[in-house]
């Protein structure tokens, strides 16, 4: 190991907030961090396949410009100098945005996403577009067009999706954080499977202007990073009203980092007595129960909660996401059916067969179901805790529908059984690492809050990480130097 490699490893081991704070103190430059990130990708991404495109020269120029700005004494943003890479579905004017698809293989948008503008205004730079499920529509990490993304804890295993490259790149410590998107678990699942932290905000909390749509009722933008504190910093930057997205909430954005006090005294953590733990893998159940002891030691009270309306949530949620996904792609399904992966065209096809009255019924029930759920559940507790995945992480082969693997459709659908309901309900939910399964693949703890309760969700997640080391444990790929 030479000096340069040692430096790369040291810099890549910094969390997002550590890196940003080190830049602010003048201890490290943006160019140093950017060179280290590219060195890590060079060493670690060969088999991982987390990257679809990258721009080394332009990124180093951008980093040098950020260093020059700092040297000039200009005011700095909270992410100044930090190189990031994002799921390849966030529009940047003139920059490639494949959406993980063949159909958009050469797509260069004419405008930029609000979240990208905000991240750049806060001082970060974007050095790569990360692998993802084609049009964000699988939870396994398969991609026919750019190659499957792999799990940094075991190449044979699903990295989770649809933000597969975001989970893998952060889990391999190539970048400190990445945006993902979450329509049925696509931030929380790769966060869980790749041993990192992630948060899906409340529906409408973050602007979706310039973000590839999948299901406009259930799509959310959020970060994957090493720690809850890192997620808090990014969410503080990207959340809030956007005149370009009239569906985005005008609710004030609190200081999420200030909420991370570690003090859980008086806080009630609800543990569902139905749905989320039914038939769970033993190691998942054991890891989950151990998390409760940690939260209890921090002062939280653990209470059992019965969740209402879960059948209705599962039924109506499936209808909404299927119909909206099919609607968004109907034109291409007519004109370019052969350019989709088999499993994707197959999945969307089902949505075309659902009657409009059924879809409208599913939407019309949503508000009432949320009110019932929130009243009964959050009347009894402050946050819910569940495993992010109910069962151990499958291998890519086990969930490979396109290969004709027996049982793959079931494996494919089961991955997101504990995350999908939260999207229909529109609630904020985080996933933080809390153990390893029998195959050495991470297990995630899901924390769910009331609408606009991100601060409390992050507070509980951060308190858990204050007393555990799962988020500090390096994946095998992150140890490659």
């Amino acid at each position, binding site marked *: 190991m030479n000096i340069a490699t040692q430096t790369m490893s040291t810099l890549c081991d910094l969390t997002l907030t550590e890196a940003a704070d080190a830049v602010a103190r003048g201890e490290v430059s943006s160019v140093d961090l950017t060179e280290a990130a590219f060195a890590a990708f060079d060493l670690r991404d060969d088999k991982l396949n987390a990257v679809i495109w990258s721009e080394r020269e332009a990124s180093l120029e951008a980093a040098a410009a950020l260093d020059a700005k700092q040297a000039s004494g200009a005011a700095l943003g909270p992410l100044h100098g930090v190189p990031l890479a994002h799921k390849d579905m966030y529009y940047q004017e003139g920059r490639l945005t494949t959406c993980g698809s063949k159909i958009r293989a050469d797509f260069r948008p004419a405008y930029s996403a609000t979240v990208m503008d905000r991240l750049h205004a806060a001082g970060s730079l974007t050095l790569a577009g990360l692998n993802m499920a084609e049009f964000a529509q699988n939870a396994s990490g398969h991609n026919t067009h750019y190659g499957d993304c792999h799990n940094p804890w075991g190449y044979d295993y699903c990295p989770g999706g649809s933000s597969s490259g975001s989970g893998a790149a952060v889990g391999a410590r190539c970048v400190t954080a990445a945006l993902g998107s979450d329509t049925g678990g696509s931030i929380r699942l790769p966060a869980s499977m790749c041993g990192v932290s992630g948060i899906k905000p409340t529906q409408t909390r973050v602007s979706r202007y310039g973000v590839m749509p999948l299901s406009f009722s259930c799509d959310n933008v959020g970060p994957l990073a090493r720690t809850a504190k890192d997620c808090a910093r990014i969410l503080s930057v990207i959340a809030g009203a956007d005149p370009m997205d009239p569906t985005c909430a005008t609710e004030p954005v609190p200081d999420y980092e200030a909420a991370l006090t570690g003090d859980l005294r008086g806080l009630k953590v609800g543990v569902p007595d139905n749905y989320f733990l039914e038939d769970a893998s033993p190691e998942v159940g054991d890891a989950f129960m151990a998390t409760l002891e940690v939260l209890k030691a921090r002062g939280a009270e653990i209470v059992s909660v019965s969740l209402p309306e879960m*059948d209705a949530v599962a*039924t109506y949620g499936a209808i909404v996401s299927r119909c909206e996904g099919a609607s968004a792609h109907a034109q291409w399904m007519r004109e370019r059916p052969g350019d989709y992966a088999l499993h994707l065209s197959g999945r969307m096809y089902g949505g075309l067969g*659902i009657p409009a009255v059924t879809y409208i019924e599913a939407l019309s029930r949503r*508000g009432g179901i949320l009110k019932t759920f929130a009243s009964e559940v959050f009347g009894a507790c402050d946050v819910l805790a569940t495993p992010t995945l109910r069962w151990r992480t499958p291998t890519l082969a086990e969930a490979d529908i396109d290969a004709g693997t027996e049982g793959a459709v079931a494996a494919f659908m089961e991955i997101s059984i504990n995350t999908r309901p939260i999207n229909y309900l529109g609630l904020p939910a985080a996933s933080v690492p809390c153990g390893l399964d029998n195959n050495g693949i991470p297990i995630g703890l899901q924390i769910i809050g009331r609408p*606009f309760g991100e601060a409390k969700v992050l507070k509980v997640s951060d308190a858990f990480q204050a007393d555990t080391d799962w988020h500090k444990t390096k994946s095998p790929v992150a140890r490659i130097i």
Partner: protein
Amino acid sequence: MSDDLAKLFEDVARTWSSVPLPNPVGVQMALPLQDTITGLAAEHGRMAFEEEPSSFDAALQATKETGS
């Protein structure tokens, strides 16, 4: 999924959206919708259509976090 249901999906997709069955996986991936249909039938009669103006956004506001 029964053959009848597969045929129904194929007819609806072709008639209303001009999209033919893309591949046999389409039938496989529509399979879980049988559970959705069963679930939907169970909901019928349990919840009435909301007559008054309402929205999901209003529900988010009505149930939002107010503490720290």
